[in-house]
């Protein structure tokens, strides 16, 4: 949220002049018929995408020649100004292209072609989804022409259709940058910045993947992976004491006491037990111990013996260890 976002109602002000012009006077509006196709020795493709009940629908007409080139195209659209302008621009971008190339036109290409200047978006964020329909109808038309499934044109799972951000990209960015919030994902990838349907259920349209789920699952994967790596390092003796989990610290302290301290104490009929281990706010690890046997009540338990125990633990594990008898 920022100052400019506090005042609503300027939706149409954010439309580029090109959007407004094409909304008022679409240049490629119309229909193409079998007669048109016959007259130009081409194949007619008619593709529908969307539905009135969803708020947006478009019908795309192509005439495709024997070289797979789109030699003419028209559209009809049920939708808002952005949908009509996007459909009009989409048709323009298709014209003269081979079908195999036209299918590479994305909604981002359509939106960029509608900009008045390269740095200013043609439509406000919440209207980006209207250009997605223009992209989808191209895939539909190509699938009809080439006899393929629409899904065949997608190499990746797209989570945010407005910004064309894939599932693998989002997961990779979360992992590489240790992202913890949806806002961070949006800042890094633009996913979720536009119509917001992909953020969580309940938006404009239902999605197969939501950012909230991807973030939660990826964080869980990261934590599991970190634990695995951590365990591996412990096994190899490569993990510094300070980076150990509390369980690992406890085991390491036990091991050091068993190997280097307890035999020394037992020679004099004494012993100790660990009461608690705490990471203090000043960067120390505090080990609370209780003396047993001859050590209990011994005069050096709070001086020489204590320093000896602390020194051994510091030497073998970490210089920030403190031993505190209770």
């Amino acid at each position: 949220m920022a100052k400019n976002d506090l005042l609503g109602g300027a939706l149409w002000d954010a439309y580029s002049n090109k959007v407004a012009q094409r909304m008022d006077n679409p240049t490629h509006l119309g229909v193409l018929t079998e007669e048109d196709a016959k007259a130009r020795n081409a194949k007619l493709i008619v593709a529908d995408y969307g539905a009135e009940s969803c708020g947006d629908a478009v019908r795309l007409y192509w005439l495709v020649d024997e070289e797979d080139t789109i030699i003419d195209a028209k559209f009809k659209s049920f939708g808002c100004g952005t949908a009509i302008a996007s459909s009009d621009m989409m048709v323009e971008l298709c014209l003269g292209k081979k079908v195999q190339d036209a299918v590479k036109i994305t909604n981002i290409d359509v939106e960029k072609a509608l900009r008045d200047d390269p740095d200013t978006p043609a439509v406000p964020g919440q209207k980006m989804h209207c250009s997605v329909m223009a992209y989808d109808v191209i895939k539909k038309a190509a699938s009809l022409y080439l006899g393929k499934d629409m899904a065949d044109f997608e190499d990746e799972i797209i989570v945010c259709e407005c910004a064309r951000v894939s599932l693998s990209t989002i997961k990779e960015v979360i992992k590489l940058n240790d992202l913890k919030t949806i806002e961070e994902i949006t800042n890094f990838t633009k996913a979720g910045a536009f119509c917001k349907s992909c953020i969580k259920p309940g938006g404009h349209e239902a999605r197969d993947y939501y950012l909230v789920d991807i973030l939660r699952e990826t964080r869980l994967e990261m934590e599991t992976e970190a634990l695995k790596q951590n365990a591996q390092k412990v096994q190899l003796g490569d993990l510094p004491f300070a980076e150990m989990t509390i369980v690992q610290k406890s085991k390491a302290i036990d091991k050091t006491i068993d190997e280097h301290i307890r035999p020394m104490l037992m020679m004099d009929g004494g012993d100790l037990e660990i009461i608690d281990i705490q990471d203090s706010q000043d960067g120390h690890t505090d080990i609370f111990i209780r003396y047993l046997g001859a050590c209990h009540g011994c005069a050096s338990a709070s001086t020489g013996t204590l320093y000896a125990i602390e020194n051994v633990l510091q030497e073998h594990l970490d210089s920030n260890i403190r031993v505190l008898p209770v």
Partner: protein
Amino acid sequence: MRVYLDNNATTMLDPKAFELMKPYFCEQYGNPNSLHKFGTEIHKAISESFDKLYAGINAKNEDDVIITSCATESNNWVLKGIYFDEILGKNKNHIITTEVEHPAIRSTCAFLESLGVEVTYLPIDEDARVTAQQVREAITEKTALVSVMWANNETGVIFPIEEIGQVCKEKGVLFHTDAVQAIGKIPVDVVKANVDFLSFSGHKFHGPKGIGGLYIRKGVSLTPLFHGGEHMGGKRSGTLNVPYIIGMGEAMRLAQEGLDYEAREVRHLRDYLEDAILKNDEVIVVGKKELKVPNTILTSIRGIEGEAMLWDLNKAGIAASTGSACASEDLEANPVMSAIGADKELAHTAIRFSLSRFNTQEEIDYTIRIFNQSIQRLREISSTY
């Protein structure tokens, strides 16, 4: 030509109300809570404004009409106040409202649900109304409040408030009504309707924006939403917005005075526009004329997306709405159209025209011409028509 047909979103301030407000900005600017003369000399005007507000809804002197910033605040206050007074730590945990309330009610109910309150959202019938019988059947021993709007902001359909009030009275349940779209259009009488709380907003009946009110029946308690002072008897803290209270009071008086004009002339213009709209093929208008406030038309036009039509109208200088002004940037279908459920395909095609006493025959003729032109243009573009 500029034609304003979005009066359910807001209205023009009546110039007569504006004239009365003027002295209270720079000349009589004292704080009415001050002890000195700068403050006390304003009391008479404030008192007269309160009289106009009380008269406008037929409140008794013993009742409270508290000035708020808007009906959204009033609605929030009732629902959250009920939570503190009737629900929290007590045996009641249920609120009844409708599926087509303003977001000030629906969103606040959703918030209360997150706190564990159970909310029943009554659906509307084929006439776009809820009935007293629906309310009766929904009330349980756990019900703390019934909140049903007096008239719907999008369809203009009037709900049977007097009957619902009677049911609530019989059942001993508190009753709130959001009367924002009723005041100034039809008679509103809190006594006849048996309401305990009633919300209103000044700018919906040609008063200033940013000021509203909440009627609270005598003997009903409501925890304040704002704490911090002794203003309004300690019930709503915050220095009184004197010029706006003066303006809202006068607007209320003018609205009451103009009810006959509203019922006769505004209704005539509305019906004239509605009849012209319905001459087009595959166009519907929601709600029967006789069940609606006199100024509102919610229409759906097969094959034309609402915002696209709004774009064309705006280009020609005509202001209308795709539904609620609060939701004009929303991508969702019109919620009232969805709630009606009669034709799902039409839910994205809703356009609302809402008139006022300042509209003229010439403006409506112009609107009909532009509307028909736009239908023709957009249906030529449409892939679904």
